[in-house]
């Protein structure tokens, strides 16, 4: 048992089926009388739809139905929603222009949905779509967020004059200005946080079916949060009562945030399934994913850091333009505000911080949460400017951080940007990371590289994130439209095995193993007797799903609470069986015993008695062994750590090679260190991808997505990445029962700044001051050339 419980590197239960092709994904569904949907998408970034003629398509072979925005408008299909109301500087709610699932009279980005064709086969649906005649009148487009607010920029929505969604601020501007006035040194930085395209291995897919007999809809969808999908479709978009809509998110092949949201496609499938009274399935092709999945990041930022003569941070001011894309995706507004501005204290005692964020509409795919969501952007700003400051003030970058760290005895620590950190040991993580990375030996390695004609650099990133989303009261006060608790149900069967229902959703995270380990430890049940069930609104209690590194900290805590209820009830039953008082019953390793005696009964015996209550305290305890729990966290969790990247650049080609990557993370307690390691590796892979390779690029004139396939969008491959050196600092979370903090996003949050700091460190000696992500070989080489030219001119 102890080999399978909390803290053990248990091999993932789900891998057998995934690795042998026995998973059940949405696209695997074959319903009787199933039809296929194809979505005709806009080829233009911005255009008026003067006319759509679907006559020829309607009568094409195999066509069941063709729908356009006129049909959905007539049927009063609601707008897709943004579920988080951000209030601007003046207390006004953000501008929320409508987002029709099918464009009514205007298309606003390449890939915008224009018509839905339902046919007997996918090929017939595509053939018919080619017969739809759309008369577009092209309009000027705006792509670059930095230009969206310009006078004369193309306008997307009448509801959002000047393309401004909101002008938001956080922090004390007057205090910041006062601190800058007395600063000994100010470091300034301009940054672009590059647009990323998520690229989960499984593309988005959906299938919908309507039962005319019962009026029941079923939607299978690649969702990270099926209950939220049901809630949004029911309450806001389609008006189907919640109890008449079942949403199932079966095996899902990766999400990274992009599958949190409620998109046009699953909305339309659900609606149309009743219209045509047949099941409908749709699976995105990869090129559709590129243009229609919500993208990530896309910020343009200017930041300034004020310091005293010793490098003590006095104040930070940050001005960001964040791209929302053409429409607001489900949680888009929260990402560059409450998940970004609130993190700008980082690990430091900076007493005054002010952040101003203007979110803008552009003719690009919607932008929303992507692994880390706001926190990578915050970490990038802060850790890049800190290291730039260290260079300018000629203070060692580790030492500058040390001087500004929040002390380990300062918790709870109230930052000037709303959050109250619960625990941490930043100096401890830094010390460990510096040792693992052999920071002291770096200059020798730099000299060795130089002797070979190479440029070597080292960069740090001391990140913090707010995870375990979230205390409902807090997010509610900030504008969230939902609570952020999690549910669990622990149901014993009469034979003693356990079904654990969680409102979290696993799409690669390994919950089936981690949660089973948890239950195994709490209840002393062997791992193979525990089945974790998730993803079906018909069987699982209402839950909020998986994002924001919340599943273990919030969902796992709910499971612990349910286990506690099982134990409490079991004690009463055991007391009856052992003829003792419940107060004298102890529970340990799956056995109830009378304290101080050898009189005992195993949990299995208690469970059996609960289901076959022949000799049972029925006047005190109900039969059965099935407990529900809901857990609403007291605070966010605050994973933090230090990542260190060491890089070698070939100045002849601009190629960067990561020589060493060290990560020391504080996730609190670890349940399955192997799974945690996998999460860290994956996150760092995505972070390095953002820093060196990935870039969603639209042509600024035409608005065409230039990186619309793997021919041009650089996904990191195994040989782009080094072996990672991973270590931990363990400071248990003080406010959840497991002492856990969450590990899913850390790598993606920390790595970009570490890599870019290493690049800047390597290039500083040749005169390169600034280079944007992704630091491709081409950009690095160009930067070196520009610096050479500049040096020659000087």
């Amino acid at each position, binding site marked *: 048992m102890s080999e399978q419980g909390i803290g053990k590197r248990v091999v993932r239960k789900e891998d057998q089926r995934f690795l042998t092709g026995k998973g059940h994904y949405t696209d695997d569904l074959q319903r009787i009388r199933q039809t296929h949907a194809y979505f005709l998408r806009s080829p233009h970034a911005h255009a008026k739809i003067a006319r759509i003629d679907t006559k020829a398509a309607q009568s094409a072979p195999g066509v069941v139905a063709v729908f356009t925005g006129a049909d959905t408008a007539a049927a009063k299909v609601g707008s897709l929603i943004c579920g988080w109301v951000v209030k601007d500087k003046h207390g006004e709610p953000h501008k929320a222009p409508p987002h029709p699932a099918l464009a009514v009279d205007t298309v606003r980005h390449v890939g915008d949905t224009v018509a839905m064709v339902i046919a007997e086969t996918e*090929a017939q649906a*595509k053939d018919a779509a*080619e017969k739809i005649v759309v008369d577009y009148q092209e309009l000027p487009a705006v792509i670059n967020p930095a230009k969206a607010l310009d006078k004369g920029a193309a306008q997307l929505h009448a509801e959002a004059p000047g393309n401004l969604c909101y002008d938001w601020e956080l922090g004390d501007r007057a205090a910041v200005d006062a601190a800058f006035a007395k600063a000994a040194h100010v470091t300034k930085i301009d940054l672009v946080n590059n647009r990323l395209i998520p690229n989960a291995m499984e593309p988005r897919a959906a299938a919908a079916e309507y039962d005319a007999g019962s009026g029941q809809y079923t939607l299978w969808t690649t969702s990270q949060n099926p209950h939220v999908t049901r809630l949004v479709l029911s309450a806001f978009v389609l008006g189907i009562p919640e109890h008449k809509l079942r949403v199932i998110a079966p095996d899902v092949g990766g999400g990274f945030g992009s599958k949190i949201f409620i998109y046009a496609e699953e909305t339309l499938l659900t609606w149309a399934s009743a219209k045509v009274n047949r099941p409908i399935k749709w699976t995105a092709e990869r*090129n559709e994913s590129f243009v229609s999945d919500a993208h990530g990041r896309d910020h343009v930022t200017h930041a300034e850091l004020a310091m005293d003569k010793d490098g003590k941070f006095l104040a930070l001011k940050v001005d960001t333009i964040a791209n929302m894309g053409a429409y607001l995706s489900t949680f888009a507004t929260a990402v560059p505000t409450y998940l970004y501005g609130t993190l700008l204290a980082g690990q430091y005692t900076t007493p005054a911080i002010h952040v101003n964020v203007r979110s803008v509409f552009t003719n690009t795919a919607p932008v929303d949460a992507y692994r880390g969501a706001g926190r990578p952007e915050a970490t990038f700003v802060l850790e890049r400017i800190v290291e730039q400051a260290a260079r300018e003030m000629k203070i060692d970058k580790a030492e500058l951080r040390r001087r500004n760290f929040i002390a380990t005895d300062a918790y709870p620590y109230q930052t000037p940007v709303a959050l109250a950190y619960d625990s941490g040991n930043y100096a401890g993580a830094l010390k460990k990371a510096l040792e693992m990375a052999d920071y002291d030996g770096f200059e020798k390695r730099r000299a060795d590289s130089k002797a070979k004609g190479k440029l070597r650099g080292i960069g740090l990133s001391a990140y913090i994130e707010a995870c375990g989303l979230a205390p409902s009261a807090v997010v509610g006060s900030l504008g969230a439209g939902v609570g952020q608790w999690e549910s669990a149900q622990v149901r014993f069967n009469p034979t003693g095995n356990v079904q654990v229902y969680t409102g979290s959703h696993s799409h690669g995270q390994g919950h089936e193993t981690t949660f089973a380990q948890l239950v195994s430890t709490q209840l002393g049940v062997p791992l193979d007797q525990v089945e974790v069930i998730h993803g079906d609104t018909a069987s699982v209690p209402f839950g909020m799903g998986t994002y924001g590194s919340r599943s273990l900290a919030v969902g796992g805590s709910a499971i612990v609470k349910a286990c506690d209820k099982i134990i409490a009830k079991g004690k009463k039953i055991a007391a009856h069986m052992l003829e003792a008082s419940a107060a004298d019953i102890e529970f340990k390793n799956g056995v109830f015993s009378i304290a101080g005696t050898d009189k005992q009964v195993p949990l299995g015996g208690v469970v059996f008695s609960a289901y076959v209550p022949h000799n049972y305290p029925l006047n005190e305890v109900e039969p059965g062994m099935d407990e529900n729990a809901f857990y609403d966290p007291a605070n966010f969790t605050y994973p933090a750590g230090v990542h260190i990247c060491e890089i070698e650049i070939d100045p*002849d*080609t*601009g190629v960067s090679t990561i020589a060493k990557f060290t990560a020391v993370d504080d996730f609190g307690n670890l349940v399955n260190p192997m799974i945690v390691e996998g999460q860290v590796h994956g996150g760092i892979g995505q972070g390095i991808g953002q820093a060196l*390779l990935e*870039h969603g*690029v639209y042509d600024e004139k035409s608005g065409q997505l*230039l*990186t619309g396939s*793997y*021919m*041009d*969008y*650089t*996904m990191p491959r195994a040989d782009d990445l080094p072996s990672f050196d991973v270590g931990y600092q363990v400071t248990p979370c003080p406010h959840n029962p497991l002492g856990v903090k969450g590990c899913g996003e850390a790598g993606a949050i920390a790595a970009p700044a570490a890599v870019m700091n290493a690049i800047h460190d390597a290039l500083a000696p040749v005169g390169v001051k600034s280079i944007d992500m992704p630091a*491709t*070989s*081409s950009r690095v*080489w*160009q930067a070196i*050339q520009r610096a050479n030219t500049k040096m020659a001119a000087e």
Partner: protein
Amino acid sequence: MYDFQYHRPKSVADAVAALKKAADGKLIAGGQTLLPTLKMRLAQPTDLVDLSGVPELRGIKVEGNAVVIGAMAKHAEVSASAEVQKAIPALAMLASEIGDAQVRNMGTLGGSIANSDPAADYPAAIVGLNATIKTNERTIAADDFFKGIFTTALKEGEVIISVSFPVPEKAAYMKFDNPASRFAMVGVFVAKLAGGVRVAVTGAGPSVFRVKAMEEALAKDFSGKAVENIKVPTTGLNSDIHGSAEYRAHLVTVMAKRAADAAK
């Protein structure tokens, strides 16, 4: 993918006949470019004539001072061939770095050069080794074969049978990958042949080209040093989000230098 008539002839003659009968027929070799194109509905041929069942297009053999490779030889076969590895190791290495394992086990020499993708690897070897392309109608010299972006000297109904690569004294291929596609952003094939030195560049321009100045320099001194300061003009070079013409031009020099030093 649109519907089409599928043919799998057993001889070149039958293939040509099928092609001539078709309203808009296309040959398919390994299909590594054509199939994705069809799947994305970017082409709509009436007929596909599959060459995979034609035995005379297969095989790798040494004939005198040349390696003759059948048009339907897969990249994986070329890279694994003991004959090629012994006679022209640079060619085996080039084939081993095309695409990924799946592409190498489907994609063919003939298919690659007939497609004439500006970023394909094989054109650099064809021109760099002064190979001869044998078709069902004639033989074509390397320098006459590639005509531009996705354009070759092949005529309607002309089928590549094999390619004859002269065995060089030494040669090497150095490729700088496009980070996304891993096609050649710049690939330079350098060879010292009985007839002189050749430097052929793929990826940098609309089609493979030779760098005469480098050839002359290497003829005098076959070393990286000899070419390290020879710049190619940026005029006409490719420029895209992955690299400017200046960057590509620079990489030609760097890759040529590295190839000259690595040649064996």
